[in-house]
């Protein structure tokens, strides 16, 4: 059986990739995708922990399902906000959206 820490390392790597994407991608949609990546890595974590440490309960499974649901809602709202920004500015480049500052 594959050891637990392999899963954890994959999840950590995925999370780091997501975080890097959030910080470096210019397109807001890409940033949103990176955030989804972070959430996915959390799910991987949760399921792995559940399967290896406490398979007799349903905690981890439930948690992961909730995260799915919330991530979907979050993505929907995020896309809506990006569309409304695009209508106003004709751009979705995150660093150009900077009227509010100082």
């Amino acid at each position, binding site marked *: 059986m594959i050891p637990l820490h392999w899963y954890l390392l994959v999840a950590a790597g995925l999370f780091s990739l997501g975080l890097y994407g959030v910080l470096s991608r210019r397109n807001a949609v890409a940033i949103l995708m990176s*955030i989804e990546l*972070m959430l996915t890595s959390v799910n991987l974590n*949760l399921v792995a922990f559940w399967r290896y*440490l406490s398979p007799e309960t349903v905690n981890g499974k439930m*948690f992961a399902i*909730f995260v799915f649901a919330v991530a979907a809602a*979050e993505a929907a709202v995020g896309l809506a906000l990006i569309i409304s920004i695009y209508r106003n500015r004709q751009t979705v480049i995150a660093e150009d959206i900077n009227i*509010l500052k100082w």
Partner: protein
Amino acid sequence: MFTESIPFLQVVVPILPEIGLLILLLTVLLVDLFTRLVRKRTLGVVTGVGMIVIMLANLFVGFSLVNDASYAGTALGGMIRYDMLALMFRTMVLIAGALTAFISIDTPVVGKQGEYFGILTVATMGLSLMSAAADLMMVFLAVETASISLYILAGFLRDSKLSTEAGLKYYLFGAATAGLFLYGLSLLFGFTGETNIYNLAAPLGEMFAGDDTGAFAVAVALLLLLVGFGFKVAAVPFHFWTPDVYQGAPTSTTAFISTASKAASFALLVRVFDAVWPVEVAVYWTGLLAAMAVITMTLGNLLAIVQKNIKRMLAYSSIAQAGYTLIGVVALTETDLGTAAVAFYMFMYVLTNIAAFTVISVISNTTGTDEIADFAGLSRRSFPLTLAMILALLSLSGVPPLAGFFGKFFLFAAAVDAGYTWLAIIGVLNAIVALYYYLTVVKVMFVDPNEDTRPLVITPAFAAVLWISGVGILLMGVIAAPWWNWALNAAQSITAMAP
């Protein structure tokens, strides 16, 4: 107690506000469906009055059940913890929600949108759950329910460049920090196999006391949690969204974010810190948190001084206020006074900030902008508004006998009691700096000339909010003791044993 004999009530009572808000949400949507556009102000009235009714019902039932600090009940399989702390912070959240609904009625665009009030209700529900959450899953769900609703509320004005930008920035910053927060939660679950936060402290403490790897892992998980909280309460260095969002969002949303969201976040923060963070870790994190408090209040105050936009100034002021409140969080490991001071401070802050943003709403309805310069000559244009603004500003700066003075007094007293006298001194120094920019607004209102003679319309809804918050500010100041006792009970109830 009558609830003990009826099992049904035992299930219902702990989530009474949520049930009420759900019914209210459906009602609002129905009202929206069946009213014509000219009569849309009914929406706000229904929402506001509904929330006040829910608050009163919850208080009534609550006080007949939770009559002292030692009571704690759980519901939904441990997801919800029903104690004095939850009762107090839910009351704050519902007051803030109701007053925000009233402000929204006469805020342009949003006041006539059923969706706005619907989402406001959902956000209130999320914040109410945050005040009572006792399980990592519920923590996450509550935080996200509130956050996602707030993103929409902030970006609600689809045709405004500022509002959409505020919404998107809030969203991107919030979602990213939520990712970090959630990662921390998953680690905590992994380390302990538990999700109920009251069961976490023991295994985490054991792990922390063990080898260095374990200690490091626990530290990282806890600090990831701190990022999430830091974002919600606007503490440095997770505060960056605050000024941009406060300035860009519709004023009623800003009022709500700055009060209800902050209060509920502090409720969750003190509960998690008191229950989850193992005593073994306390020595390490109190120092970090104290440093965070100092930087937060100092930076907030310094940056508030140079602002020209009143909403932006209040955003930085809100950061500074979060810094003061963190003093109470620092103190809470040593003394219950810390938590009590946080609760008291948040209660007065809800009333005070709502009052300030209401005045801003009235003025920007006439002028169309939110510059501090718009306040010039206000004392000659509208005395009630001036009076309300003075009350709010003096309370924020902590001038006796207003509520804000006692808020700061209790925070600093808690710090001294916990052995953090230096923190209290820095707090006092900061309060002096803050006095400067608050009084600048007062000066502008009284001294600066203004040729603008357009009438400032205080609609009945605005008047109601100003009266409620103004009387509250005075009452919490002049008669501080009952509120403080309530806060003390709330503080002691965090660690009460559940039956």
